[in-house]
């Protein structure tokens, strides 16, 4: 079994969100970068668990990004995985461009399983997995909460509107992962030490179209401020929700 986990670098969940250059760029100064939580906690950790069950499993990671992503890749390798591939580009705004790079890596590697997080916490696109699957003409199971493999048959539980369903599919398949797939881990010292010597291959991007561009960012208008209501006057709260906010 050969697994490819797609990882990305995002601002920390508590990072202050601000923009510069006339609201056209994210203000990166003072921002802590992390491995995208959905990629780490669910996609990567589940893949590591599969490798622990079957030692013959080969586990590769792929990141599309510049050299500034290398510390994040090393952190991922400290959790597990045999080697990482970084597609060397700073063109990261268009999902199709990024997906095209991953698809190229996947094609050359001949993987049975491709895992992604359900979305990144910065762009919130949830597009990459679907695009990679289409580019490779593979089945795609999105928003997976459980994943088991038996021979070439994967059994995947995925979230649907108001519930979940269990899917069965033959590999190769692309799966986007969310809560439920695995429990978060922290790397141990041995993992951190070994990560330093694991191969991190840097490859140049292939030519691909950029279908979208971001023209500007904006912050939501500030809240008017909270209106405090006495705990003894719920009639007033209901009146405000009905007459002022018009939500009941």
């Amino acid at each position: 079994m050969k697994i490819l986990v797609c990882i990305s670098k995002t601002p920390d969940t508590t990072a202050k969100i601000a923009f510069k250059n006339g609201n056209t760029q994210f203000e990166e100064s003072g921002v802590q970068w992390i491995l995208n939580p959905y990629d780490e906690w669910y996609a990567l950790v589940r893949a590591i668990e599969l490798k622990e069950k079957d030692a013959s499993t080969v586990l590769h990671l792929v990141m599309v990004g510049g050299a500034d992503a290398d510390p994040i890749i090393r952190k991922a390798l400290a959790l597990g995985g045999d080697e990482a591939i970084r597609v060397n580009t700073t063109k990261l705004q268009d999902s199709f461009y990024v997906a095209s790079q991953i698809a190229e890596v996947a094609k050359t590697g001949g993987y049975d399983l491709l895992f992604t997080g359900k979305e990144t916490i910065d762009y919130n696109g949830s597009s990459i997995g679907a695009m990679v699957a289409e580019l490779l003409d593979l089945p795609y199971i999105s928003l997976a909460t459980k994943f088991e493999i038996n021979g070439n048959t994967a059994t995947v539980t995925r979230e649907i509107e108001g519930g979940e369903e269990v899917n069965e599919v033959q590999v190769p398949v692309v799966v986007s992962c969310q809560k439920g797939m695995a429990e978060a881990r922290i790397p141990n010292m041995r993992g951190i030490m070994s990560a330093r010597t694991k191969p991190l291959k840097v490859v140049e991007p292939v030519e691909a179209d950029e279908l979208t561009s971001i023209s500007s960012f904006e912050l939501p208008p500030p809240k008017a401020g909270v209106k405090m209501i006495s705990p003894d006057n719920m009639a007033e709260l209901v009146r405000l929700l009905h007459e002022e906010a018009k939500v009941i």
Partner: protein
Amino acid sequence: MGDGGVYMVLIFADQTGGQFKKTAFEALSYGAKLAEQLGTTAAALVAGTTTDDLAALGKYGVKKVHHVATETLNVFDAQVYTKVISEVVQLTGATVLVLAHNNTGRAIAGRLSARLKAAMVPAAVSLPDTTNGFVVKKVVFSGKAFANVSLNTDIKIISLNMNAFKAVAGEGTAEVVSVNVAADAPKVKVTSTDKVTGEIPLTEATRVVSGGRGLKGPENWGIVEDLAHALDAALACSRPVADANWRPHHEHVGQTGIAIAPNLYVAAGISGAIQHLAGVNRSKVIVVINKDAEAPFFKAADYGVVGDLFEVLPKLTEEVKKLKGV
């Protein structure tokens, strides 16, 4: 080029078991409004057999319904659906495809973009600005900001965020056209489905009542449920509550759980950590009930009550019932 001029808007109206989802009506209304803005017509696309009267979708402003009534499509498979929808886009000459950014939309929007080489904006929250190109606003940074995304291809795909556009039902019937598009046999087999019945799905709810650690234990959830019933609201909870198995995981809202955008979000006994806010900050009105006046959630709230939720919630439920005359 479509039959209405430069643009033609096609809306994928998602249905399961012959039932349209609320998000489908939102997408239809959005698409109809968009067609009006672009000076063209809007048509719907329905996949799978259905007992619903499809002409009635005209209420939401579409003139035509393209129906691919193939039984294979009664089971959702992202790969199969993508091929079918792409073919209908090409057959109809649609230049804008609108779909709902629900679980189905998330599974196919990216595929459609790659297949049609069409620029796609996921989690869109606005009609496009066409004064200089075709620019659509979307949620980024888990609701903490927006990006204005320029769609730079001839065909454009808009995956509309839930509750971002109100479904407006008016008058009108649509012409239903049967479309003959072959659907491949799905590679993904659905072996079982487990739907929560009798409850409003969290992502579709317009009102949500949520409980946190302040409830002290799962046995106390009755007062949360009572308020939710009085408000016709869905139930939600914070991460510690789901992690402690007080409530099922599908109720967990927040950064790592479900992101919601209801009209009303009532949070009882939740302090409002930034990760929780990331999942609920697009709610239109937030009510926070907490005994700790310093709880960070009050900064993000519209209405706040500092008090003991065990006393406040039942009183609030009573007043809601009074308003509704029950």
